[in-house]
């Protein structure tokens, strides 16, 4: 059993929180540049140029890309041969608290959905834990903004709806979101599993880098088709009209019950943040 100090978890999570909020991934920067060459709308090109400039300022000055520094969503892959001294959940939350406080990130979490006040340190985090073989601990921090999260949806479809039903639902969900989730967006889609698991799949899909296709050629083709259909909607950057509405579509699947066909769409804004560390 490998021992991992509590402090290592705190420091790692704090660093991931600030890095995710300051440094947009190279895949996103490339996607903005590729988008610029395909965008026909002047307003759309102007927006994409602003996003490139924004990413540059955030990186150079170490300030958050967006004032909405997100809910700290954390994917924890815990090796069964690794042991954290103390409570790992507390260590992660201490890391979030440190990252958001020392990093001048906005705190956006209310202690109770109805009666709550701002907790003041952006905790508690949402932590998705998976046990894996080995003695490593993999932590991904994916801060998630409210604007795009609000445009997301779970739909318990009928098995008879099939893949065509999935496509119609995804495109329609993006159409109904229009300008609200800060296009150009990234679309995470979950298909299968149960009511709660399909939403997790859609969220997990957002951890992929732009251009990373589903390994199953069937779903890879569906991803390409959905991206094209979404970009034909005309919503464009910031919804002002244009070709670049989405930068990519990612599908994650899971076996399903014979009676159920759950589908979830989790929309991410163009500040698609995720940083990973392995301890």
């Amino acid at each position, binding site marked *: 059993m490998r021992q991992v100090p509590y402090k290592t978890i705190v420091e790692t999570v704090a660093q991931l929180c600030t890095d995710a909020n300051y440094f947009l991934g190279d895949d996103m920067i490339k996607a903005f540049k590729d988008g610029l060459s395909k965008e*026909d*709308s*002047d*307003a759309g090109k*102007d*927006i994409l140029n*602003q*996003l490139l*400039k*924004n990413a540059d*300022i*955030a990186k150079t*000055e*170490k*300030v*958050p*890309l*967006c*004032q*909405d*520094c997100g809910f700290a969503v954390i994917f924890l892959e815990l090796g069964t041969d690794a042991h954290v001294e103390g409570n790992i959940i507390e260590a992660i939350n201490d890391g979030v608290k440190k990252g958001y406080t020392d990093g*001048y*990130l*906005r*705190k*956006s979490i209310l202690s109770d959905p109805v009666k709550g006040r*701002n907790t*003041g340190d952006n905790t508690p985090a949402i932590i998705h834990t998976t046990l894996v073989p080995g003695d490593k601990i993999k932590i991904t921090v994916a801060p998630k*903004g*409210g*604007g795009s999260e*609000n445009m997301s949806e779970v739909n318990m479809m009928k098995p008879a709806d099939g893949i065509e039903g999935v496509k119609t639902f995804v495109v329609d969900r993006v159409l109904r979101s*229009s*300008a*609200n*989730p*800060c296009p150009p967006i990234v679309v995470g889609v979950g298909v299968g599993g149960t009511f709660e698991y399909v939403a997790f799949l859609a969220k997990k899909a957002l951890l992929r880098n732009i251009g990373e296709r589903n390994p199953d050629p069937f779903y890879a083709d569906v991803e390409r088709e959905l991206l094209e259909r979404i970009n*034909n*909607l*005309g*919503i*464009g950057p*910031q*919804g*002002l*009209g*244009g*070709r670049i509405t989405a930068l990519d579509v990612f599908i994650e699947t899971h076996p399903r019950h014979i009676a159920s066909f759950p589908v979830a769409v989790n929309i991410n*804004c*163009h*500040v698609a943040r995720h940083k990973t560390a392995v301890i």
Partner: protein
Amino acid sequence: MSEPKKISPPLSDEDIMNLKIGDRVLITGKILTGRDSAHKRLYELIQKGEKLPIEIKGQIIYYVGPAPAKPGYVIGSAGPTTSYRMDPYAPLLMEHGLKGMIGKGVRSQSVRDAMKKFKGVYFAATGGAGALIARNIRTATIIAYEDLGPEAIRELEVEDFPVIVANDAFGGDLYEEGMKKFRR
């Protein structure tokens, strides 16, 4: 693209009638900030017939909850939040003199109707470009509801703050128009 129009609050009906969807606008002067919780409080005060802690006549409210300022900065990243959440409150504020709103995303029919009726305008700023936008903010002062943290009402002094007219007082909607143009 045509040259941007320059405006400074307080805005008159005439200023509003001069703005059309798609116009690029640079705002210089003092604007207010407010989002979900602050709107709820203002709305409830008006309904009770009580005095507001801020003057909204002729003013522009920017829907923003800024990030904290790093040392040496006047404000942290400060891009717009999604506007539809303020839709239940916006018509009453316009009835009481509010002229402009800055945010991102589409507005409801009732807000668009109120812009026609009370002569108001809705500006779109670039969502997610908070670090860039903060460069046009010169000062930031909390003037009400400090207890709300990022949601407190601030007075911002801005210089050439760039926005686009998304809804005008003539019923125009840039989101609908833009999408129609590029739909395949």
